[in-house]
């Protein structure tokens, strides 16, 4: 098998994640889909690392994970505070772009 298949899988997962972001209204699920997209990217990076025979791709994936962790922390905090004031986690309810 050609390792390029990993890339195809990453593209597929990324697209599914993106579609999820666009379709779902629950902010938490939207976030999960974002995580899915990030993970798909990581898979691609790891595969690239293997293709090129150096570790830089893995380093990037590592940094992506750290950034994703930071993003999740802030994002979930936002979701919680929005939920507190609106009693809803729907992204559509916040269409006025303010709390």
């Amino acid at each position: 098998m050609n390792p390029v298949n990993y890339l195809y899988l990453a593209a597929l997962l990324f697209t599914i994640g993106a579609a999820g972001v666009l379709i779902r209204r629950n902010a938490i699920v939207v976030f999960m889909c974002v995580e899915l997209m990030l993970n798909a990217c990581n898979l691609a990076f790891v595969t690239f690392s293997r293709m090129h025979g150096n570790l830089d791709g893995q380093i990037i994936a590592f940094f992506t994970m750290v950034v994703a962790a930071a993003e999740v922390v802030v994002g979930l905090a936002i979701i919680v505070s929005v939920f507190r004031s609106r009693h809803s986690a729907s992204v559509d309810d916040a269409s006025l772009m303010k709390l």
Partner: protein
Amino acid sequence: MTALAAAASQTSTGEAVQFWLLGIVAVIGALSTVLMKKAVHSALSLAGTMIILAVFYLANGAYFLGIVQIVVYTGAIMMLFLFVVMLVGVTAADSLKETLKGQRWLAAGCGLGFGALLVAGIGNASLNTFNGLGTANAEHGGNVEGLASLIFTKYVFAFEITGALLITATVGAMVLTHRERTERAKSQREMSEERVRGKQLPPLPAPGVYARHNAVDIPGLLPDGTPSELTVMQTLRNRGQIRDVSNESLEQLKALEQRSEERLGRDNEEEEVAK
């Protein structure tokens, strides 16, 4: 050397089998993340997909990342998700009905086009030579050592900045969820007075029907058999998540009686037949 290159450009049969099996599962997991009605199911599906990705990382020679994926991502981040899901309401199911006009079609169109483009891009790229990570991993005595030497030399600046980012994110999360106290904190004396002068002097009655249920969302029954809302905590009351079981025992009794009656009746019939 040529043998090594050839080995690198093709994966082993075992890996191929693993890829096709787990890859399908990963896609299914991703799809269910998007399509499940309940957020908790989505989270669980995503966790599964992530674990499979961790396996793929390992298969690609990224041992450190594979472990980190499981420990940090699946273990910590996804649990954080689940925690928030619980906080927001685990049972609240989303309606999947689209409210924005044309959003679903646009999303589908964009998604398909985007996927096609990505696939076309990957297909276009001439990715036929594979070097494999053997040399790179062996250079510093292993994958983790190799990563470490890169992080602390070439990428040390980015690493430091990432550290700053994490600290900022932590502080940001605290600031966002912090609620300023708008009134004076009650003293112990006021709290005790409030408690004594309130309507409910003794402790609130406990929830649950001891004979059959002890869950917190089941109201206790008053002597006349009607449920008492006081016994359920206020959060669940507000959410309307009270399970009324006041009639359940009666129904169960009725069903039991019916079953025993049926059984007895059959036995009677059998006896009659036997006679």
